[in-house]
């Protein structure tokens, strides 16, 4: 059943199944391009998003998918003067078991994207169409790649208002985005033999897990041992077998619980390797 979003005049989809109309629906998921507001205001940023609704037990992937899988990708075709920002990635979940651990989303997720709009070339009363060529990998026990051309047509308005059904999704997605670390907190890391020590100094830290932005730095499947320090926390992160050289920083997000995730960028200090003499 196609969902109509407020005053959006048309929602057209070319799914992999060549079905036209409504959200793209393939094995494992449904995806739709939605807007926070019922129109576009010339010169003001427009918030749109890719709303993925997975079937039970299926998942898609975070920007760093972990050990397997691939993140969704989007290629925009926009009217002149429009410019799309990067996907804003909500904090993921740790998925999988045993020696293969992935980072991604189950249930549903909205990936917001902010679009800059021109102030001069848009006339009130007209309309514009955004096109997104979206590809993804959705997995359960097995994986299915998918692709869809999603479009969204919006009226040009002087004062667009929120579309209630989608505005709620954007607010929820916003609360799942990692926040900047509080200014009083500090993050630093050491590179040691076989592992990184990631120290976060800040109030109220007891349990946390680290999700690296880059693959190939830490072993995703290894348990992250947390040690409480005076005024903070230290995580032991086993190095990846694919780690070629020590990175200058460990960038990622620190997840403290549902809705509590912080962006972390920790400078890495190399500690001397222990002597291997007998």
């Amino acid at each position, binding site marked *: 059943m196609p969902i109509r979003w407020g005053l959006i005049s048309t929602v057209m989809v070319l799914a992999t199944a060549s079905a036209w109309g409504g959200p793209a629906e393939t094995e494992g998921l449904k995806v739709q391009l939605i807007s926070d507001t019922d129109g576009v205001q010339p010169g003001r940023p427009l918030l749109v998003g890719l709303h993925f609704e997975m079937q039970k037990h299926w998942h898609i992937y975070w920007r760093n998918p972990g*050990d*397997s*899988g*691939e993140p969704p990708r989007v290629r925009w075709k926009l009217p002149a003067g429009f410019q799309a920002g990067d996907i804003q990635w909500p904090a993921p979940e740790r998925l*999988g*078991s*045993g*020696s*293969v651990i*992935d980072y991604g989303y189950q249930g549903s997720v909205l990936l917001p994207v902010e679009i800059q709009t021109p102030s001069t070339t848009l006339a009130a009363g007209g309309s514009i169409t955004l096109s997104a060529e979206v*590809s993804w*990998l959705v*997995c359960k*026990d*097995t*994986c*299915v*790649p998918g692709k869809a051309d999603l479009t969204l047509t919006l009226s040009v308005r002087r004062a667009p208002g929120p579309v209630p059904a989608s505005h709620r999704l954007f607010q929820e997605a916003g609360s799942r985005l990692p926040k900047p670390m509080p200014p009083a907190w500090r993050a630093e890391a050491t590179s*040691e*033999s*076989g*592992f990184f*020590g990631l120290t976060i100094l800040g109030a109220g830290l007891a349990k946390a897990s680290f999700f690296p932005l880059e*693959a*190939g730095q830490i072993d995703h499947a*290894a348990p992250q*041992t947390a*040690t409480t*320090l*005076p005024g903070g926390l*230290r995580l*032991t992160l*086993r190095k990846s*077998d*694919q*780690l*070629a050289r020590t990175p200058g920083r460990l960038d990622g997000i620190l997840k403290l619980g549902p809705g509590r995730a912080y962006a972390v960028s920790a400078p890495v200090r190399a500690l001397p390797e222990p002597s291997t003499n007998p």
Partner: protein
Amino acid sequence: MKKLGSWAALVVAAALVVPAWAARVGEKAPEFTATDSNGVKHTLSGYAGKPVVLEWHNNGCPFVRKQYDSGNMQKLQKEWTARGVVWLTVVSSAPGKQGYVTPDEENAYVQRMNAAPTAVLLDPGGQLGHLYDAKTSPHMFIINPSGTLIYNGAIDDQPTPDPASVAGATNYVSRALAEAMAGKPVSVPTSRPYGCSVKYAD
């Protein structure tokens, strides 16, 4: 002070439980014994003096199908075995999981796909997969003639199941083998393996 001391002890304890590398480039590749689809046993030490490629495989995985349906993997197998490389395809899917094959099914697949590995090692218990910590299909390893691991990672630089990506890809395995055979250091010795998760037993 006392508090700090006990914290240091804890950190040391945490460090000790970090296990040794599974298969780290620059170190000796783990020795193994495995049985192929014709019932023949293979050991890594039995191939001392030759370069060995390990290719993790799952015939239902879209990332593997990209390589096989395009004929790219078969081409690599033919090219490199003709140059003296031992190419071992490994299937670590557990019974009931995607990619699990009986010996007969695997032999029929090899024939149908015109594949040309030296042998296909059947690893339904996942022992070889866990020994090398194979994460994905494909996941590629290269061992040099003296038994040292010289590559651990992806097949190429195109982490997508899109068959159109094969044509313009930089193949890390071919490049590493060519460099190693020319006596040069491997310029990209590790990369993030990409693909489907290896379908180990639960």
